[in-house]
């Protein structure tokens, strides 16, 4: 029985191998691109949603910021609360109705649909990630004069990214599998290949078997890579004391005599000298 399955799979692969591989490549490219764009959308939503405003601000600024929050809220609720397969239909067939735009390229439309769908989920993940950051981090950044964008970009979001890495992984893996619904508008991903091939040669199970293995490989590979990235983001677990750098010639001890100034006067002079 197993031998039969293997020989069927073998013959399918011999005949349609490249078709399957193209399907895998399409799925992979769509999932990776859409997850990346989705992340960017999510982080942008995170930055926009957290712009602070107070009672002292101009009322137009307050109004605009409130409006932004309402729009983002609506975006998240709508795209999280409806099936992606319907969103694809709405955007693909709806755009010509409302705006007279028709998509010639199925890739563009697929990437747009999956990206904004992912973005809606990511926006919530990022929001959660930002909430988990100690408010002291915001205050520390503000206190040295950073504005909201700088605070977010250099301090908060890098820490958020690290915290939500597992959720980005989740989204990516979901995307690898769920991009299969894009067949509704004619995107030929890995699963669409199965339908095409099995329809032509009537070998449903061997083809499905290959699909299972293929999808599993894609997601396992993703999990592995994400773990690696998480480790990298966590940084080194130890550090080296720097006692050799010329600028840092101090021996690494803290105490210095109170009246004699610092033992680093050489450097002080050098530094003060360079400053106008």
């Amino acid at each position, binding site marked *: 029985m197993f031998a039969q399955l293997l020989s069927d799979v073998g013959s399918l692969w011999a005949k349609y191998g490249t078709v399957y591989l193209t399907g895998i490549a399409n799925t992979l490219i769509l999932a990776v691109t859409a997850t990346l764009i989705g992340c960017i959308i999510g982080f942008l939503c995170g930055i926009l949603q957290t712009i602070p405003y107070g009672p002292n601000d101009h009322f137009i600024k307050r109004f605009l910021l409130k409006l932004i929050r309402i729009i983002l809220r609506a975006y998240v609720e709508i795209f999280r609360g409806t099936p992606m397969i319907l969103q694809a239909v709405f955007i693909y067939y709806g755009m010509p109705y409302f705006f007279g735009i028709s998509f010639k390229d199925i890739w563009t439309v697929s990437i747009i649909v999956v990206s904004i769908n992912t973005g809606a989920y990511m926006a919530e993940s990022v929001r959660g990630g930002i909430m988990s950051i100690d408010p002291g981090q915001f205050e*520390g950044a*503000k*206190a040295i*004069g950073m504005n909201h964008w700088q605070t977010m970009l250099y301090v908060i979001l890098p820490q958020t990214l690290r915290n939500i890495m597992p959720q980005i992984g989740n989204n990516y893996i979901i995307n690898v599998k769920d991009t299969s619904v894009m067949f509704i508008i004619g995107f030929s991903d890995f699963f669409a290949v199965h339908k095409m091939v099995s329809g032509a040669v009537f070998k449903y199970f061997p083809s499905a078997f290959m699909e299972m293995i293929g999808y599993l490989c894609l997601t396992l590979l993703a999990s592995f890579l994400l773990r690696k990235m998480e480790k990298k983001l966590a*940084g080194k677990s130890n550090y080296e*004391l720097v006692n050799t750098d010329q600028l*840092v010639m101090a021996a690494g001890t803290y105490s210095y005599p109170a009246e004699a100034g610092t033992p680093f006067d050489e450097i002080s002079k050098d530094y003060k000298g360079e400053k106008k």
Partner: protein
Amino acid sequence: MSEHILEVRHLSKAFGSHAVLKDIDFTVDKGDVTSIIGASGSGKSTLLRCINLLETLTTGEILFHGKDISKGKINPSEYRAKVGMVFQNFNLFNNMTVLANCMIGQQKVSKINKEEAKKRALYYLNKVGMAPYINARPDQISGGQKQRVAIARALAMEPEVLLFDEPTSALDPEMVGEVLDVMKSLARDKMTMLVVTHEMSFARDVSSHVVYMADGIIEEEGPPSEIFTNPKSLRTREFLKRVLND
């Protein structure tokens, strides 16, 4: 002749119906080391946070070199770059090394190039004795070390005033000394400082001016010699008796 760096006028702050600060008036001059003392909940930290615009004022104004900074006419980021702040909980950026913590503000806010920023960061890290630790991340060093880095980070912006919000309160007793030593050396360098503290020895021996706060008002202020040896107000006397006998 002497120009006030900071001038607080009729400052009040309320959280809802709870008035934390009531009609505060005081000034900071160049080179002053002002200690703000008082019981917990007397509004010391809130005052400091108002001065750095981390809290919005309910009424009153804060003048920086004679200009009102509290009404949103001046960009708070630009103002904060000139007024450094050191927090009780350090608030070092967890995603950066010690060195990067001291460089990021210079590079992004003051737009100083990387080399100069590094030089300046190393200079101030040397000053607080943390230069050997430039490659460490905040979660790898002790509390006292973190606070010294936080001071270096604030100094690297070369601010005109440095605000300290209970800089030693979150530290183990054996680490308090190293942070106070750094603050003392800053005082010797004539850095203008405003320090909210429970360290009475610092207030008495290092500061040039002491402000005693109670229940959201300034109960008494003056040179430390007067406040500590001859307080006029009964409440000041009782507070000092309580904390100095501990």
